[in-house]
């Protein structure tokens, strides 16, 4: 150990106290989850994490007594990293902007929402669902050649996540959406609709007909003919 090292590094606070403080903070962040109130949980979890990290960095890593250049090294790395990711954040956090809609992202959201039937079976809601949705996608795409296309089955597997199994616009995904997914059972919905507009909405997404882009485009899994059949099926839901 060099001489200067001795000079700058003879600081040893009472590590017990810091350790006990860290454990208490940990307990607080866990207790926060019981409040059930989102912002309390968040403040307790991330506020506490920041305090804990500072305690460890300053006292255990001895940053408090370290030469300032070490702090610069760490600080610059941190700032550059945050700058870079802040720059790309709008593209990642949003699924649409003024000029664009990320349909793949919206479809992923729809797949991530479990079916009504089996949310509480203890089975992983997300895992089989995503495979199921993928499988549904494949069958729908392969439909003309293989099994006959069933608009009802496709609706129940793909669209029901948002539109609800009966088309009432109340699927599990609806809660997070504004405007709400269309309610096909409501006669008021049908008053000003033409089939060609609905087909376009289905194949090219809500934004293509001036509606919400939360309605994804399904052109990649539904042919024009299938979209027609789908609209015919939607008609049968009216007034149910």
């Amino acid at each position: 150990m060099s001489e200067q090292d001795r000079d700058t590094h003879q600081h040893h606070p009472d590590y017990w106290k810091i350790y006990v403080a860290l454990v208490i903070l940990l307990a607080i962040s866990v207790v926060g989850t019981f409040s059930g109130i989102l912002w309390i949980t968040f403040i307790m979890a991330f506020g506490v994490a920041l305090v804990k990290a500072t305690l460890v960095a300053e006292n255990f890593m001895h940053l408090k007594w370290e030469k300032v250049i070490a702090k610069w090294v760490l600080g610059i790395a941190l700032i550059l990293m945050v700058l870079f990711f802040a720059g790309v954040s709008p593209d990642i956090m949003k699924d649409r902007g003024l000029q664009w809609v990320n349909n793949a992202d919206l479809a992923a959201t729809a797949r991530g929402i479990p079916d009504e039937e089996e949310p509480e079976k203890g089975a992983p809601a997300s895992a089989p669902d995503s495979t199921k949705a993928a499988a549904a996608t494949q069958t729908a795409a392969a439909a003309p050649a293989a099994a006959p296309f069933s608009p009802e089955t496709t609706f129940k597997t793909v669209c029901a996540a948002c539109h609800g199994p009966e088309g009432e616009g109340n699927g599990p995904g609806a809660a997070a959406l504004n405007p709400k997914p269309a309610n096909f059972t409501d006669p008021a919905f049908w008053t000003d609709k033409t089939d060609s507009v609905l087909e376009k909405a289905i194949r090219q997404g809500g934004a293509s007909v001036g509606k919400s882009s939360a309605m994804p485009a399904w052109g990649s899994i539904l042919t024009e003919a299938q979209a027609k059949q789908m609209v015919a099926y939607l008609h049968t839901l009216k007034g149910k």
Partner: protein
Amino acid sequence: MQTPIATTRSATGIPTGRLAIWWVVASEIVIFGGLLLSYVMHRIGHPEWAIAQAHTHTFVGAFNTFVLLTASFTAVKGHEAAEKGDGKKAAKFLYLTMGGACLFILVKSLEWTSEILEGYTIQANGFWAFYYTAAGLHALHVIAGAIVIFFVARDAAKGRNLQRVEYVGIYWHFVDIIWIFLFPLLYIAK
């Protein structure tokens, strides 16, 4: 044995070994920071991940946080002992830290096994992909830390290279800090 020049010369006033560790930590900030920020951004964009995230075990995560905090505590006690020239005591503390690392990995393996058996694999969806990537990269750091700590402790017990006790400790505390953020991100903010 002749000491390498780099060990004795220092333009920054920080011993070269320790400065090197700070650079390691700086690069780790970019690696983990990038991963964690990507996760945060995707998580904000995907409210439905909450459904998947509800399945993580808060208490298992909390227990492992406790284990890491304790291992950090023993690491810094080792540093204190090393600076007093007591290599034997420093080594004892470092072995405790190593034990903490092993306990952490043991708990992690059990946790992952049960989750994978339930069908929550890395391919299940975006949340689980991040879950296994972030926690997995962190676990690799814990394993690497345990191995390095073992060699440093073995040396320290013989009174050799005592300054390394501090250096390995700085790395270890950083691994601890990563987990301090991973814990609320993956287990609490549901």
